């Protein structure tokens, strides 16, 4: 059995990670701006936000690779700057864009990382778990993008960590590979491992994470479970409309009953609504009155992307 990460005097578990008022400034640029985060033991926590929002800096501070300009960082009940090696032994990390030595095999790389940890898991079984068995004897230069990310995951897992930190583990993968990768991450959560994953794919965060923090310009602008965040929207349903001919002005749509917001994205009209059965007929009446015809009308649940847009007033770009 694993030791509890930070059992208090009364036996209760503290958070796996807590950041309090963390600030990081580099030559005048504020990368992280008084960030407060608390990650609970056993949850999968997502850091979500566009590129350049400060996710990677936050992660590097959290795993002790960078020192914050100010603020407090406590990981698994410990602060950095003491016995860092024992703390590192409890954390598995995969970073963005790591390139492994080209002419080492998958098994050799994982064995190397295994050797850094005082205790850990069997190399072969970790390789099997991330689905690289057939590639175990291949040079890393022969791996596809997805396989490389799996190798990075294997290196993060081989020390049998209590906290798994994955910085953008699915960036650059095709949607199919992203789904598979997500499934393997989920299976580690079931082992009681705490996971921190950063991503700029909103739908991925929604699928994988128990809770997410939406990061914008170094600040957490929203923290909560994806469902909570979506429920916090005024309208948690979205009507997406594509016009075939004609158009209606946004102001007219906004006046309809139950409409909370209107925006346009890639030529579609996106209308956030509270109650579909009230608003959709009203919308259709409006179109008929303006002689506009529809190509598509889709009704969907609001997503984290809608949360992002409603919080920042800006369209979300995930590339």
């Amino acid at each position, binding site marked *: 059995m694993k030791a509890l990460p930070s059992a208090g005097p009364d036996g209760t578990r503290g958070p796996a990670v807590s950041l309090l008022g963390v600030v990081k400034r580099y030559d005048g640029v504020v990368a992280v701006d008084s960030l407060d985060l608390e990650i609970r033991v056993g949850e999968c926590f997502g850091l979500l936000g566009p590129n350049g929002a400060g996710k990677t800096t936050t992660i590097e501070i959290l795993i002790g*690779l960078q020192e914050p300009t100010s603020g407090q960082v406590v990981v698994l009940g410990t602060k950095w700057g003491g016995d860092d090696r024992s703390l590192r032994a409890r954390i598995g990390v995969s970073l963005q864009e790591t*390139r492994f*030595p080209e002419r080492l095999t998958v098994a050799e790389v994982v*064995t*190397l990382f295994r050797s850094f940890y005082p205790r850990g898991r069997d190399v072969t079984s970790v390789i099997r778990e991330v689905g690289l068995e057939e590639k175990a004897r291949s040079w890393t230069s022969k791996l596809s993008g997805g396989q490389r990310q799996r190798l990075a995951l294997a290196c993060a897992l081989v020390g049998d960590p209590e906290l798994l930190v994955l910085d953008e583990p699915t960036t650059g993968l095709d949607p199919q590979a992203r789904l598979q990768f997500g499934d393997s991450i989920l299976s580690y959560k079931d082992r009681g491992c705490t996971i921190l994953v950063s991503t700029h794919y909103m739908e991925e965060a929604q699928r994988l994470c128990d809770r997410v923090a939406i990061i914008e310009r170094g600040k957490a602008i929203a923290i909560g479970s994806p469902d909570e965040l979506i429920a916090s929207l005024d309208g948690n349903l979205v009507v997406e409309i594509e016009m075939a001919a004609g158009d209606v002005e946004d102001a007219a749509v906004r006046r309809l009953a139950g409409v909370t917001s209107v925006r346009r994205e890639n030529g579609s009209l996106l209308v956030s609504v509270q109650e579909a059965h009230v608003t959709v007929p009203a919308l259709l009446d409006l179109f008929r009155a303006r002689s506009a015809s529809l190509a598509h009308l889709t009704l969907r649940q609001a997503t984290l992307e809608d949360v992002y847009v409603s919080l920042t007033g800006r369209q979300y770009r995930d590339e």
Partner: protein
Amino acid sequence: MSRPLRHLVLARLRESLRHPETIFWTFLFPILLAVALGIAFRGERPGPTNVVVVDGRGAADAERSLQADKGMRVEVLSREAADHRLRTGRAAVMVIPGDPLLYRYDPTRPESRLARERVDRALQHAAGRTDPIGVSDNLVAEPGARYIDFLIPGLLGMNLMGGGLWGIGWVIVEDRIRKLLKLQLATPMRKRDFLLAHMLARLAFVPLEVVPLLFLSWLIFGVSSVGSLLSLTAVTVVGALSFAGLGTLVASRARTTATISGLINLATFPMIVVSGVFFSTSRFPDLLQPLIRALPLTALIDALRGVMTDGAHLAVLWPHFLVMGLWGTLCFACALWLFRWT
């Protein structure tokens, strides 16, 4: 050796040995260079001395007198053609018959100075000069005194320098660029083990750099070491460690391959020129000698030549060990202080 250290060294060695270019630069290139230079400067019987005689009165007599010396190739040419020969180095000296007879040559070319003496002797003899004492020559071609004997320790030194700087400097910077260094720092890996692994992997490469070159130069040119194998090993290892220190220093800050290759070239080229790889350091002015002797490559090559050609005892070589040791230690200390880990 601790487990992580052993695996780091193994990974380093595997990664190097699986790259064909490592094999080329480490083993083949120095050997090819030695063979090419050994052939070019093989020091066989010296070729004939090329002399041009300017056509005119007395030219035929001079030609006849000079041809008596079989070691000279004499041609009678117009002044214009003769000037061209001299200017392009195809003639060592020009003879302009007349009274007085005129020798035209470039005194900075050793072969021209020799040719002038030789031509003068032949012409004076033909005119009736006699030598007051009889002499005869006893020619020797002892291994140890040839250019190749001078060259091999120089190449060995250059090789060890290149190995240290490229093998450690370049590789560390590559790890940094790949973000592998950063990822490893996020694990419980010790920084000490990381640097030590580079040093040990470097030392493991040294025999591969030294032994084939020594063996082939012995096989092809008969180059051998007068001094003991133990002395040679000691000098080699200290030299390799010294350059490993320098390699770590050049790698301590660099974040791009352009920076690191620039730094390595900046460090190595001047030493290749002044430290006596291809020609003796004595060609540089006396004023520069203390500076040149303070360079690690000069110390290494001088010590290698000391052992290989003079059979020098290690105790005599202490100043060289001191220079190499100081460079290695100071560079490594600076590297630790400057090192950009993340």
